[in-house]
């Protein structure tokens, strides 16, 4: 099993090699995120370095105060005291100002990284092909962009700045200690041994557990999103209890792994403290005996103790950062996996320009099957001259939508090529292709936002007049104006504010305004009543003039406006001729048409 892209994403038991590969991948992502902000990082680093250095000077100043200024003051010489205390105050002010500057500065940097990452994932998931989305599920994509990003955000704002500050503080404290009291410093060095072991233990254990939390939280989100999306069916079929049971299990799984990592941290953090405190006591002992032997001033001893204590002070925030880092690390693993996925319908490297497309479509030896195997469209050839209106009919599941999706390049044929004006679709730039070919999909999805916005999606920047004109052309204007805010009415999520037929009309208007050379309508009128459908058909007749169109419909009324009818069965085109000829014949279409006529009243 490989770990390429999102494969094996739910596995937690990675082999060493796989782990390494994944780590490399996340690091690559991380470094690409950091690259643009290197300069900023540099400035921030300088600020924080000065702040920490000044801060670390504190105990030394106190030591000076006790060892130098105090004896001087005893002799009534107050100048050293003034100097020392003044220096202390000054360094306090500078530290605080710099530190606060650093925090704001770091926040800006962090937010920029986050913004960058957010956009990258968003854009990338939009770029990925339909088949990726079909297998990966929306819930997971959402989870990557919400929960996983949150944990990176947490890393950035909980830890980043404090960690750097803390590390620097430790380094400076160490240096200061070394300068003043080598014995104490030696002890500090020794304390690194248990520290290292503890950290290693923590790292090893959390890595695994954090991977589990990512998987568990994604599952939770997937289930949550699915329930909320299908809430009507959930209620109507009394699925609430079964849902709740399943959800409770998922919540408990998530809680359990979460508790595990928190517990690990709950040992790690006190462990650090313990090491720190033992070190302080040891330094106290060494320092104390040095003082007894007269090798050390009291002030220096104080400073050593303060330093030793301060040395371990940032440990907690570093540990927290490290913790967040581990968590974000697993999130980054998953995110980098998604980013590593390549669209199976790739953008051409050397696109051929498609200027003023006429709309001549051709299928050459095209064969297609979905990833899971069974051939949906056995090899076939089909030529659709520019400007022709094709009606496609056939039993459900015959492959009509599939064929349409090949034209709009949701998928690439597994064999052969689809061409537009003689150019293979695979060598036309995506934007170029989308201008030329537009499909109204079987499900009329509306985005939350106003009716106008939804229509304008077909042509960003469309004027109000254009929007109204498009709505009028498909017969949607009337109902839209009767909505509470007319064109500005929010259609709610998935267009729940309007009826099914109204949704179809709006998506139809959306295609109308896009004005493509090739228009594909996949059962775009299936939920419409007959009068509305009639209106749409009148609109279609003007719309389709001079355009290539593929109209998939079960209602044969649509067929009347077609130049040519294709009958599809089990993926094969079994009839292909003008409607009049087919109706007059004895084939399948003629039978269907007869049944249809009979059903009319």
């Amino acid at each position, binding site marked *: 099993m490989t770990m390429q892209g999102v494969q094996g994403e739910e596995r937690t038991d990675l082999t060493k090699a796989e782990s390494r590969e994944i780590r490399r991948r996340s690091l690559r992502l991380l470094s690409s995120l950091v690259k643009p902000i290197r300069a900023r990082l540099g400035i921030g680093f300088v600020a924080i370095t000065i702040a920490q250095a000044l801060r670390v000077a504190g105990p030394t100043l106190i030591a000076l105060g006790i060892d130098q200024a105090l004896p001087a003051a005893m002799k009534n010489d107050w100048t050293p005291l003034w100097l020392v205390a003044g220096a202390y105050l000054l360094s306090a002010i500078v530290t605080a100002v710099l530190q606060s500057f650093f925090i704001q500065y770091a926040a800006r940097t962090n937010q920029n990284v986050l913004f960058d990452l957010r956009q990258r994932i968003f854009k990338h998931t939009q770029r990925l092909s339909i088949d990726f989305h079909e297998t990966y599920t929306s819930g997971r994509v*959402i989870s990557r962009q919400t929960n996983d990003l949150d944990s990176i955000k947490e890393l950035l704002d909980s830890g980043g700045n404090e960690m750097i500050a803390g590390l620097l503080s430790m380094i400076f404290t160490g240096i200061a200690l070394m300068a003043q009291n080598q014995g104490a410093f030696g002890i500090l060095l020794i304390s690194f041994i248990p520290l290292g072991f503890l950290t290693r233990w923590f790292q090893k254990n959390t890595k695994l557990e954090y991977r589990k939390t990512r998987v568990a939280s994604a599952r939770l989100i997937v289930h949550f999103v699915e329930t909320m999306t299908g809430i009507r069916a959930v209620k109507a079929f009394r699925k609430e209890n079964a849902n709740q049971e399943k959800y409770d299990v998922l919540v408990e799984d998530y809680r359990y792994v979460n508790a595990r990592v928190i517990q690990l941290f709950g040992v790690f953090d006190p462990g650090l403290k313990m090491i720190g405190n033992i070190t302080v006591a040891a330094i106290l002992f060494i320092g104390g005996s040095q003082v007894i032997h007269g090798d050390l001033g009291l002030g220096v001893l104080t400073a050593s103790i303060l330093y030793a204590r301060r040395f371990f002070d940032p440990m907690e925030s570093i540990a927290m950062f490290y913790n967040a880092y581990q968590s974000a690390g697993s999130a980054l693993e998953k995110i980098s996996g998604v980013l590593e996925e390549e669209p199976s319908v790739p953008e051409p490297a050397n696109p051929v320009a498609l200027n003023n497309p006429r709309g001549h479509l051709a299928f050459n030896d095209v064969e297609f099957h979905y990833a899971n195997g069974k051939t949906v469209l056995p090899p076939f050839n089909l030529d659709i001259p520019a400007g022709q209106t094709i009606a496609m009919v056939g039993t459900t599941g015959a492959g009509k939508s599939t064929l349409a999706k090949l034209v709009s390049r949701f998928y690439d044929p597994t064999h052969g090529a689809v061409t537009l004006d003689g150019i293979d679709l695979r060598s036309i730039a995506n934007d170029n292709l989308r201008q030329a070919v537009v499909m109204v999909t079987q499900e009329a999805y509306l985005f939350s936002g106003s009716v106008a916005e939804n229509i304008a999606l077909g042509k960003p920047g469309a004027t109000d007049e254009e929007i109204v004109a498009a709505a009028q052309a498909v017969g949607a204007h009337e109902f839209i104006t009767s909505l509470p805010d007319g064109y500005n009415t929010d259609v709610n999520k998935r267009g729940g504010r309007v009826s099914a037929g109204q949704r179809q009309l709006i998506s139809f208007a959306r295609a109308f305004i896009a004005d493509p050379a090739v228009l594909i309508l996949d059962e775009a009128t299936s939920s419409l009543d007959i009068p509305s459908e009639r209106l749409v058909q009148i609109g279609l007749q003007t719309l389709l003039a001079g355009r290539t169109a593929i109209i998939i419909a079960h209602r044969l009324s649509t067929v009347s406006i077609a130049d040519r009818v294709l009958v599809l069965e089990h993926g094969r085109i079994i009839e292909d001729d003008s409607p009049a000829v087919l109706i007059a014949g004895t084939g399948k279409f003629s039978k269907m048409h007869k049944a249809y006529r009979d059903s*009319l009243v």
Partner: protein
Amino acid sequence: MNNNGTVATLLRIFPYAKKALPRISLGMGAALAGQMFALSIPQFLLHLVNSLASHGTIAKLIPLVLLVLLMGALEACMTLLRRWFVLTPGTHVEAGLRRSLYAKLQDLPISFHDRWPSGQLLSRVTGDLSLIRRWLSFGLVLFIANSITIVIGLAVLFSFHWILGLIFLVCSVPIWFRGYRFEKEYHTVARLSQDQAGDLATSVEEAVHGIRVLKAFGRGDFMAGKFATDADSLLKTELKKAGLSANILIYLILVPEFAVGLSLFAGVWLVASHQMTVGALVAFFATATVLRWPTESVGFLLSMTQDAKTAVERFFEVIDAPVDITDPEQLQTITKPLGRLEFKDVHFRFADTAADKPDLLRGVNLVLEPGESVALIGITGCGKSTLTALTTRLYDVTGGQVLVDGIDVRDLSREELRSHIAMAFEDATLFSASVRENVLLGNPDASEAELKQALEIAQAQFVYELPEGLETRIGEEGMSLSGGQRQRLALARSVAAKPEILVLDDPLSALDVDTEAMVEAALRTVLSTTTALIVAHRPSTVQLADKVALLEEGRITAFGKHSELLATNAHYRYVISSLDEEAAK
């Protein structure tokens, strides 16, 4: 928001945290004890330094060092204890909140779900709840423990010398002022940021669910642009938050350090003038060092508290949302279900309908006798789907009654009502589960034969040819099916539920003529014994039903046999007949 507001809001979470409270309090105790041990160390230092200053010996040194060691070890143990006490219960509280939120969301009526953007719900169930957990098991505990520590520490400082103590006390005054202002300012921004995060989640979700439309129009980049605008607003809010934090942090760092600087001066002077021992001075600085972290932590603890408060508010916005479709207090049950469905002067209007607009449904009267099937006809947007939704109380009527076997649907439990009525919606919703589970959703105990029959009626035999037959996973996490295949499964599902009443909303719209005819033939056997309300647009579907009801301007304006209506009703002809136009050709 004032201080009271914060406390009152946060207190609301405690009923959910009841079980965890004892351990959280113990955790607080441990935290405090740990700090006290830390605070005690300087006291031993005092003796140690004083004894060193007066020519101490190793023998005197050792017990004191051991004491310091002991205190240090105890402090670490207390940290361990604190975490141990608090962490697991914290996760239980979070899980509990998460479950309640989900349960509530499932209970809330459709009208709520219509209104609420999906991302706002999602962000509540994920980000917000973990904020609350962290606050409970970390923020709250430390906030209280650290505050007490600071007060005690201040007292200890006073004990070294009142002047030194006073310096610290006076210096800390600006912190209190800043802290108070900070709380107010931060809260607004925190709220904004969490709401914006929810909006962003909504954009994410819609862009994923609507991916096909975006692809079909090549609008991925366009959406990404919109997304960037939203993300940018969030970025700005986050920066404001950081600005506020940085602002208060200046004080939190500066004040103690400033006080130490002043104390350095005062302390040396005090020692020089023999008002204080060197040991006390050293211990004083050591104590001040111990207090450094608790003081600085106040900053992020304050912001954490505000974040938690906002999260709690957002949580309760859902929990407090009224469930206006509930089970009645006086439950009635249908002892012998027959399947009579009656609409009696039914009125309905959506909450956001403009005041000057009439109700969507204004007096629907319709009776479906047991076993009778009625087709519901009307133009797009006239309220057919809405009417069907009233039967299972997805919405409640705003006037009049819907009766099943003579009992108002509002007098039945929702569970029972929905077991008598099965629906098929306009858009076939399948869940991530096997074909079997999807079809048997409303009747999990059905026999194999019943399942087979339901699939046959819906002409969904294609499922046997799927890679794993009935066990094939479908829905989002499984195989994608064609539009007509999905619709047939949804139909099979409603048939398999074996209800007394079937409510089918345009159930054959995605089927081709042949399949439709077969489904109709098969459905007739079911419909001979089942009451059915079938929304239809096509004459072919209408013929499935015994009678036809015409919905027009919110009322049933005609009811009768298809042929009768066709002959007598002009509007009916207009809605259902395509002959006029056909004839014109």
